[in-house]
């Protein structure tokens, strides 16, 4: 045991040491041999936030680099187009009649009527076209 500094003295100078003001070999030696002081120093060091500040103007740069949001006008156009597409699809399905039914029977689950399928398609189309952001939690 070569420790020549006691726990009480060590902890009195803890803050200075952790700031780097005291580069004391005795402290290192004590910490290497005293588990309770090592625990105490670890607690303080882990709890102390890393000293780093965001660079000046960071928030401004972040906002400047954000993707542009669609304007309310553009959003309205998207909604109108998606609604028109939905109506056109519904009309097409009604007009084609049996052909559409035959085609749909190949792709839709049994028991789902053509009208219901058209409604589902319209809702899906509307949702896809009008969604600006579809990802809840990104990695």
């Amino acid at each position: 045991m070569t420790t020549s500094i006691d726990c009480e003295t060590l902890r009195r100078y803890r803050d200075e040491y952790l700031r780097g003001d005291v580069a004391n070999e005795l402290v290192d030696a004590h910490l290497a041999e005293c588990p309770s002081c090592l625990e105490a120093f670890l607690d303080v060091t882990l709890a102390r936030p890393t000293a780093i500040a965001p660079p000046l103007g960071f928030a401004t740069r972040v906002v400047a680099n954000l993707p542009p949001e669609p304007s309310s006008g553009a959003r309205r156009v998207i909604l109108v187009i998606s609604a028109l597409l939905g109506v056109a699809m519904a009309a097409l399905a009604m007009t084609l009649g049996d052909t559409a039914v035959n085609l749909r029977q190949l792709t839709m689950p049994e028991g789902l009527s053509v009208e219901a399928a058209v409604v589902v398609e319209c809702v899906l189309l509307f949702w896809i076209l009008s969604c600006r952001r579809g990802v809840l939690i990104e990695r």
Partner: protein
Amino acid sequence: MANAARFQEIVANQSPVVFRVLARLLGRRDNLEDLAQEVFLRLYRAMDHFRGESSLSTFLYRITVNVAHDEQTRINQRRQRLTSLDDPKSVWHERLSGPTEDPLDAMIQTQFRTIVEECLGLLSERERACLVMFYQEGRSYEAIRQILDIPVGTVKAHLHRGRQRLRAHVHDRLASRERER
């Protein structure tokens, strides 16, 4: 989120948290701005889904941990691609290390805090994230569970094991320095 001014306020308030968490998770203080920007870009994209300050804070931590994880993965992949010293195809002088360390850097290296931060880098990503969230950020077990999307029991296990391993690494580092003296 329509209000850019409001988002800028969020960035200004939360960026110190993002920078310090990234710094500790990645064990470096330089080149963090791009990563912090990525964090806020992801937050912005998902902003409409969040109401209330607490869920925003938890979500921000979660994105930060994910961005740090992605960066760590990139670093690991780059490291794997680096030419090994045994590779006969590489040119020998390209394998030599650069100039000697700055004396100031060398002095900083002697600090206990630096040893702890270096040793944090020896833990698994999960252990490191749990320790940083619990000790530095003062998050509860439940909050860490939400941030890392793992059970509370696993959070406790990572904390316990991470703490043990960190203590062992720091002790070894101090002891080896003592032997060198």
